[in-house]
């Protein structure tokens, strides 16, 4: 077996040093009647070891049954976005010393990881216009749930109000945690046209209001007044985003009064990968830093006075505080954070802004073209790179028909909201820098044929 260096000669010599005659002696604590004794006695036999060629063949066969985003005109978003990732990003993140290192518990020999985490935290704080960001969460949805828990701790209140246009998977993630941890959720119904009165639900029992912008249906929202209303009631405003590229062009949550920002960072540097691994972004104000979940990297000096970085404020964390920790999170998304920070460094402010402008312009062009298709309506006024269309008939069927014509045309809202038939004719459509004029033309043409 190519991954196992020991030879049988080695094994015999090592058993002799240990002073036992056979390997099973070392497993003597396992109850005899429960041991597998050399074979799996289950329902299904599992195959034996295979060479690299055979494994590659088997997995390539599975991969070939999927349609890659890059192979078709592609307009699917709703929480994950197809962007071009520079070759440099993938090369650098596969450097052995990044890929095969552990959480930097021994900082003197993990300065590479720690410095990029410090750069990542600084970039995320700048991007969101917040004061401090952590070293990443699993993804946007779990970052959102952690933000809600954090707000409950800070305010010592037990109710969260969720905007109706929060991504349905995020809403469900928060609902599950709150239901099972005894916290109260008020989730407003979806408002695909972007109008809802969240302020009416804010009172002195509310810990936080969770609002997404650009929201699930693509609407951009000014959350300034909502933040003021929340603060007046002693509640916190949690701002959520799923498209990090939007912050290159759109007013950031920190400038609109958000107290905690929870976002998905996949768009910068990370592959679609069927939904994971991604990178959750979490940022807040200095005064809340000790209630933050997750790792934080900080600057310090070494014995010789040279600048260096360490994990810090770990008195918040599970390995120190156990049941009193701010979260149970341990492993986060280090390598995805690295991909984010490399891509962001390559873009720089100039590149990010241009990238965001291209995304917006492509989406505007697409919205205008789709809006001209008979009986198709674009619901959005203000949007970034994503918007919602109403189609005549069942959106899921139309998406399947488009797929049959080789166009992946968006996400039927019913895929995520199956219990709301009134949303059955809506499609969330995204357009990024990868879309060409030909892609748009193919979409419009195919949609004309199927509606």
């Amino acid at each position: 077996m190519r991954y196992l260096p020991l030879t049988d000669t080695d094994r015999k010599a090592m058993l002799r040093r240990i002073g036992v005659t056979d390997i099973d002696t070392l497993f003597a604590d396992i109850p005899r009647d429960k041991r597998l004794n050399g074979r799996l006695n289950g329902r299904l036999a599992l195959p034996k070891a295979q060479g690299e060629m055979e494994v590659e063949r088997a997995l390539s066969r599975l991969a070939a049954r999927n349609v890659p985003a890059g192979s078709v005109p592609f307009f699917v978003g709703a929480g994950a976005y197809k962007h071009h990732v520079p070759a440099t990003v993938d090369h650098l993140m596969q450097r052995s010393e990044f890929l095969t290192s552990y959480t930097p518990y021994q900082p003197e020999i993990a300065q590479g990881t720690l410095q990029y985490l410090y750069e990542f935290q600084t970039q995320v704080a700048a991007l969101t216009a917040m004061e401090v960001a952590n070293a990443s969460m699993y993804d946007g949805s779990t970052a959102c749930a952690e933000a809600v828990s954090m707000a409950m701790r800070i305010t010592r209140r037990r109710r969260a109000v969720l905007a109706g246009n929060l991504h349905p998977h995020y809403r469900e993630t928060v609902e599950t945690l709150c239901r099972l941890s005894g916290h109260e959720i008020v989730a407003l119904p979806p408002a695909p046209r972007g109008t809802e009165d969240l302020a009416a639900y804010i009172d002195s029992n509310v810990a936080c209001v969770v609002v997404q912008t650009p929201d699930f249906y693509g609407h951009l929202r000014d959350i300034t007044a909502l933040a003021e209303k929340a603060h007046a009631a002693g509640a916190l405003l949690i701002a959520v985003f799923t498209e990090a590229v939007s912050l290159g062009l759109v007013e950031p949550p920190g400038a609109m009064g958000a107290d905690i920002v929870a976002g998905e960072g996949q768009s910068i540097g990370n592959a679609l990968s069927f939904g994971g691994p991604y990178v959750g972004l979490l940022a807040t104000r200095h005064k809340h830093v000790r209630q933050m979940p997750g790792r934080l990297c900080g600057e310090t000096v070494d014995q010789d006075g040279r600048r260096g970085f360490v994990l810090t404020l770990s008195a918040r964390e599970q390995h120190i505080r156990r049941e009193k920790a701010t979260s149970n999170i341990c492993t986060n998304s280090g390598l995805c954070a690295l991909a984010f920070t490399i891509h962001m460094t390559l873009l720089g402010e100039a590149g990010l802004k241009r990238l965001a402008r291209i995304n917006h312009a492509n989406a505007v062009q697409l919205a205008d073209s789709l809006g001209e298709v008979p009986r198709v309506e674009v619901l959005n006024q203000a949007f970034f790179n994503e918007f919602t269309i109403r189609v005549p008939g069942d959106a899921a069927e139309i998406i399947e028909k488009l797929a049959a014509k080789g166009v992946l045309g968006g996400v039927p809202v019913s895929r995520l909201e199956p219990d709301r038939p009134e949303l059955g004719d809506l499609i969330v459509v995204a357009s990024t820098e990868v879309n060409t004029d030909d892609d748009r033309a193919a979409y419009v043409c195919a949609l004309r044929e199927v509606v």
Partner: protein
Amino acid sequence: MLDHPVASPTPSAGTAGTEPQTFTGNRGLAIEEMLIFEIGRDDTTGVDLPEPPRVVSRLGKLERAAPIGLPGLSEPEAVRHYVRLSQKNYGIDTGIFPLGSCTMKHNPRLNERMARLPGFGDIHPLQPLSTVAGAVALIAELSRWLSELTGMPAIAMTPKAGAHGELTGLMAIKAALGARGERRSVVLVPEPAHGTNPATAALLGYRVEALPARADGSVDVEEVRKRLSPDVAALMLTNPNTCGLFERDVVAIAEAVHAAGAYFYADGANFNAIVGKVRPGDLGVDAMHINLHKTFSTPHGGGGPGAGPVALSASLAPFMPVPYVMGSDAVGLPSHYREHPGPGSQSLGRICAFHGQMGMFVRALAYMLSHGVDGMRQASEDAVLNANYIRASLSDLMSPAFGERPCMHEALFDDSWLEGTGITTLDFAKAMTDEGFHPMTVYFPLVVHGAMLIEPTESESKQSLDQFIASLRGLAKAAKSGDVARFKDAPHLAPRRRLDETKAAREPRLRWTPSGPHRQAAE
């Protein structure tokens, strides 16, 4: 024999103090690197993008006004920056990474290639299921392997890491108790457990009661029986435990837990010791998370991403989070993929967006297919053999925590052998970095004083182990001979000397600021 490494060591040329000072601060190939905020420029980009098409903006007066503060680098500068940073890191590819409880095994590069196939890496979580049949089939196939290896009928695939898996498992338990109309409020956690166990239980509102451990870290079944009551929801147990020993009484413990109407949660962090040797399901486990980034070789990546699928017993299977593959015999057809709890479903709901850590699933399945069931059993045996070889080879100089008793996949030492030397476990660990090794896990588990927990994994050759052992023996003798300076000031030869963690916590500087570092208030 033990004290002479395979290749004889080259004596160190000297320590930092005797080396010439350089003008750059660099030392040979060890190059100092500033932050991107100090070397980047606002108008520089390493990405060539076309001019944006001219359109009438639809941003609704929400255009970002102020500068963002994100300097850029050209491509050659960026490459150099991150390559230099990488060179300040120690990884498995550098050498043995014996962090106990972390299972730092080789990360096969085939797995990386497979995860990057466009058919896996470039598919969207919400494109029509008809266009991702292979992805659903892969999830079903990995789930089948995990089910077979654990002897448990259902696998919740979506948890994003081990702690997330723990949370999901306890959620399933809470949902199951709820379905029985019961509200139990206590979770029993043995003292040597990973910190994530009590933290997870607390997150769901449970009161955590610590179970005292025996001297060997194991749980006393009589103590469990005493603590069980109608108010206990679950017992969380790591097996093999954090002291590296298999819980001999695990079956009796499971029976006692079940007799009290509670559930048995197993922390699967140490599964690498027993794959193909025994199945947790056969021991009475109701829920166990599996760290794909430990046992099944997906890279740790400097702290993630991980993946923590949870195996569930028949009694907890109905409470599986969505999405999941329906039916044990499903071949992974999209029509067997359930994304929402249907009518009458007892599913606990959704625990994260989308389908889980697909990129990690591909890597883990590539590992499994490569090893086969025979290779995985051999891997577990080699992991246990390697740990015992280290234990046996150091036990005359260092103090194994449990005498001559064989361990599983990790060998635990305490610091009694350092008594009177003035050298601590931490000093010893830092001196190991000067020798070119990543230290073992230190000061965990808490039940052993000055703990040193060594997990070599199956990836080490005998030659590598011999070199490691010889180095530790050399250090141990130096410690006992009074060579205190070697330890107290260590590391001398790492990219940084010992870092001031107290200062970092007292004066938190958590981001770079243009005006230079200054204290940032954190109450």
